[in-house]
């Protein structure tokens, strides 16, 4: 038995469903972004990504297979000539679905589905840089364990052990201690002189007047915002 199609059925029958999906794909490749219902966006995504994979191949056979779905030659030309080169560096994940709330009238959950055409390098480079900075900071902390003086002895010992095995890329569950940071105390209170909370997984820090300060469970404590920035943390809520 063939695996059933993932996601909800759309339209009044198989032919109608194919038509709806091909019209959605055509509109997406013509306009780069379309607003539709969440259900249709979720059905469109795998189809559109597959067509983009064909477009990246770029030969005549691939073009004919795309034309079997997207009947509009103008849209197919745009897909092969303009969209495919932008996706050359990207290994899948060519589209992005963002929910935009319910539609007035029938309260249908709506979404924007768009082609991810911005270059891959910019954001990924910063992420890699941040990871490298964290590793360097961890090594510095291991070299100078006196930095973490206000911490309790057992925690510091555990951190030092983990820093030692991090060279062997062991999958340590806890995170390495950045430079200028103190590990969290067991009761969640701030160590002496440390006021800024750091979240290890999101790499964000929270100052005492911040919006999420009270609800944040600190993995690290910093003396000031500058120390947190130096350790590779960014201010919470300062994304854009």
């Amino acid at each position: 038995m063939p695996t059933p199609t993932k996601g909800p059925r759309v339209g009044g029958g198989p032919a109608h469903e194919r038509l709806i999906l091909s019209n959605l794909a055509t509109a997406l490749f013509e306009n780069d972004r379309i607003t539709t219902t969440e259900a249709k966006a979720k059905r469109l995504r795998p189809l559109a990504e597959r067509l983009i994979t064909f477009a990246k191949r770029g030969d005549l056979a691939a073009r004919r297979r795309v034309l079997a779905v997207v009947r509009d030659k103008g849209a197919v030309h745009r897909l092969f000539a303009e969209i495919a080169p932008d996706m050359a560096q990207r290994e899948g994940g060519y589209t992005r679905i963002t929910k935009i709330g319910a539609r007035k009238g029938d309260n249908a959950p709506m979404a924007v589905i768009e082609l991810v055409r911005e270059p891959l390098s910019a954001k990924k480079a910063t992420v890699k840089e941040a990871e490298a900075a964290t590793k360097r900071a961890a090594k510095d902390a291991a070299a100078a364990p006196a930095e973490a003086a206000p911490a309790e002895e057992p925690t510091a010992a555990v951190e030092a052990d983990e820093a030692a095995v991090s060279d062997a890329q062991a999958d340590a569950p806890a995170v390495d201690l950045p430079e200028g940071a103190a590990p969290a105390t067991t009761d969640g209170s701030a160590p002496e002189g440390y006021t800024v909370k750091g979240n290890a997984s999101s790499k964000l820090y929270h100052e005492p007047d911040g919006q999420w300060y009270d609800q944040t469970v600190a993995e690290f404590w910093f003396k000031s915002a500058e120390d947190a920035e130096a350790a590779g943390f960014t201010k919470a809520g300062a994304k854009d």
Partner: protein
Amino acid sequence: MAVPKRKMSRSNTRSRRANWKATPTTLTTCPRCNAPRQPHIACPNCGTYNGRQYAEAERTEHQA
């Protein structure tokens, strides 16, 4: 066709309906404009999601 044999009592009807309960919508605050918004949905006030702008998401108070 299968049909009910007896009239359903008001008590049974009401005890069934007593379990239809509404739940409050989960809300978070928008990091950009601090307006309340639903998680994983672009902000209806300023239209941002994860640092990107979605004008389609913006709603006035007359639109739901």
